[in-house]
């Protein structure tokens, strides 16, 4: 019986600024039951100030920082469904792309096309899709080693990601990064980091840049940064240091915790004195929100609020998404520690199945259209594999490029010439 059972009943809620009136298309019912596999329900938001945030059984609670005032929302059921048809198609396609791509990665790995550490995202698609599909091109995403799907959601072409995973020169990082280091300047995907927590300060820096551009350079910049990381990271110093700095300077950043309850084989409950991560926002002066990360619509509603807050200059938000990875930590993980009952509880809440049911039931999209999307994505991923397979591996000449942005950094050789002027340099055979 984990400490989460009380929290699982808490539906997502919008983090409201004090002044905006929302006509939110949420149901008026406040649900206290654990979400079933196929219903997506939304609910009213009640915010209580920090001093009252004691969890009583069955009573939903959210913590917001004391200076964020919320109103109780009276919701009417008439403004339903919560997304438009175009949005439904976009969300569905993005999640299916993530799932199909990751499944293909597993196949390719076991066929010896992909190497090293590969961490798959199956089951967590709602978080990536829910947040990233709301962002603009100028917004930045910072991820961890479980970054393939963040890259895809942000718009990096599947063929570029697949080629990178195969270690080919046509990969998004020229084959130099690999599974854990996806970068794309064009799409503002700033990593891909192998050590947990080390991306959070980089994300804080990207948010700082955005604020600097607006306030010092006087550009019309309202770019937001979204940092994704896991439950294990929330016990790491860099997490807390960055929560402090982001709130202190009101940086336009959203900290998204993908709490899948496991850090390789370490259960979140065994590692954390207080496992409720959303509570760790308010002590630093930002709202902390918990949301059902298996439900893309709930994630999306919370994301809209959090990203909106950041864009308006109101500062950071900590969002804890309770989610689950259907596969092991990586393709090398035998995944023996997790209870099959726990796994099936979450697989029955598969975000893609749930969205599918929702859009069909609300008449947004016909089943045949969804099947067409499934086929389209299958073809896309197949094409990505073909592209990656037929791409050349990096040539030797690529070895020494990119170590320095300015290759003069390799220094001056005994003959007085810069090392990078040595013809061997461009062949990758120079002694540096």
């Amino acid at each position, binding site marked *: 019986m984990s400490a989460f059972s009380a929290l699982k009943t808490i539906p997502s809620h919008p983090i409201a600024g004090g002044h905006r009136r929302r006509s939110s298309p949420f149901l008026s019912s406040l649900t206290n039951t654990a979400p079933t596999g196929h219903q997506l329900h939304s609910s009213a938001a009640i915010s209580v100030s920090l001093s009252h945030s004691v969890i009583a059984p069955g009573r939903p609670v959210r913590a917001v920082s004391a200076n964020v005032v919320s109103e109780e929302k009276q919701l009417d059921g008439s403004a339903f469904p919560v997304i438009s048809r175009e949005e439904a198609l976009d969300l569905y396609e993005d999640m299916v792309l993530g799932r199909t791509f990751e499944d293909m990665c597993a196949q390719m790995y076991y066929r010896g096309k992909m190497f090293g550490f590969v961490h798959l995202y199956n089951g967590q698609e709602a978080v990536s899709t829910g947040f990233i599909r709301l962002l603009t091109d100028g917004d*930045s995403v*910072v991820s961890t080693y479980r970054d393939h799907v963040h890259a895809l959601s942000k718009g990096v072409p599947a063929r570029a990601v697949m080629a990178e995973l195969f270690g080919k020169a046509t*990969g*998004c*990082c*020229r084959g*130099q*990064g690999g599974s854990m*280091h996806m*970068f*794309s*300047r064009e799409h503002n995907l*700033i*990593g*891909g*980091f*192998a*050590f947990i927590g*080390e991306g*959070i*300060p*980089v*994300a*804080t*820096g*990207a*948010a*700082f*840049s*955005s*604020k*600097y*551009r607006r*306030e*010092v*350079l006087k550009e019309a910049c309202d770019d937001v940064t979204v940092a994704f990381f896991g439950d294990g990271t929330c016990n790491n*110093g*860099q997490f807390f*240091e*960055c929560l*402090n*700095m982001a709130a*202190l300077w009101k940086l336009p950043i959203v900290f998204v915790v993908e709490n899948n309850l496991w850090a390789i084989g370490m259960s979140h409950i065994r590692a954390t004195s207080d496992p409720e991560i959303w509570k760790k926002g308010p002590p630093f002066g930002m709202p902390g929100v918990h949301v059902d990360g298996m439900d893309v619509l709930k994630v999306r509603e919370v994301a809209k609020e959090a990203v909106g807050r950041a864009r308006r200059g109101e500062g950071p938000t900590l969002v804890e998404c309770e989610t689950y990875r259907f596969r092991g930590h990586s393709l090398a993980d035998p995944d023996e520690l997790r209870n099959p009952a726990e796994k099936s509880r979450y697989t029955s809440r598969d975000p893609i199945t749930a969205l599918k049911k929702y859009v069909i039931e609300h008449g947004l999209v016909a089943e045949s259209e969804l099947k067409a999307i499934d086929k389209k994505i299958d073809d896309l991923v197949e094409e990505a594999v073909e592209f990656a397979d037929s791409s050349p591996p990096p040539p030797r000449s690529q070895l020494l*490029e*990119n*170590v*320095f*942005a*300015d290759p*003069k*950094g*390799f*220094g*001056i*050789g*005994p*003959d*007085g010439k*810069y*090392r990078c002027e040595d013809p061997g340099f461009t062949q990758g055979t120079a002694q540096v």
Partner: protein
Amino acid sequence: MDSNPRVCVMGEDVGHYGGSYKVTKGLATKFGDLRVLDTPIAENSFTGMGIGAAMTGLRPVIEGMNMGFLLLAFNQISNNCGMLHYTSGGQFTIPVVIRGPGGVGRQLGAEHSQRLESYFQSIPGLQMVACSTPYNAKGLMKAAIRSENPVVLFEHVLLYNLKERIPDEEYVLCLEEAEMVRPGEHVTILTYSRMRYHVMQAAKTLVNKGYDPEVIDIRSLKPFDLHTIGNSIKKTHRVLIVEECMRTGGIGASLRSAIIDNFWDYLDAPIMCLSSQDVPTPYAGTLEEWTVVQPAQIVTAVEQLCK
């Protein structure tokens, strides 16, 4: 900072306090609190923040209040600062300058007397320079800020009080070049940072004894300027390295191997290297003096080398 609005400073007490050694004095009043950012005490995170800002278009100068504190930022400096340009396939540049005072001071104790150049030298993708005079401090700092590469600029705690007449106008020194301090014929003495002054003091004694040492301040700790160094060795055939790093794994150790690799045929004697003792710098003044290379030792070493 005047010429490029994207240059900013971040570190502990760099703003209102003007920097622990007053390097950034007056800048916050002139440029504001965002451009000269007083950070909380979180080296790893604000160094990472500087790196993220550099990747997204700014040119931060990150200060370690004492270079030793940057040990806490090792994760960011090694993994992100040095490596991300390569790992991202050249997509992101990281034009940061990481600077601060280091080296052995006057009885500051072991932890405030560290020489981080030896710890950072293996990190690929990083350039390291050490300034030693007001003239080269200005030139190297400008070069470091303008460089697209991440540069670690080592200052020394005891050199901030030096006074020198330097040009008002802009000048930029080359990050990869060494500085000829005193041309000579008998022996090449390679040094950097504060040890330059001990060497010059020893040089006075040596000249009185009839020796003619060539003193080179290597300035660029990574990469080494093998041209200037090589030309000198080809002339004198004898090398003495004087450094403040510890003996094991210091800059001198790397420099020694580089010289052997490249100039073995020109050497008439084994390369001598004077480094600090492999000892945590003690507090007591007498002990501290014995851990660091002193001019008298340099004189003895040269005499031995030139026998």
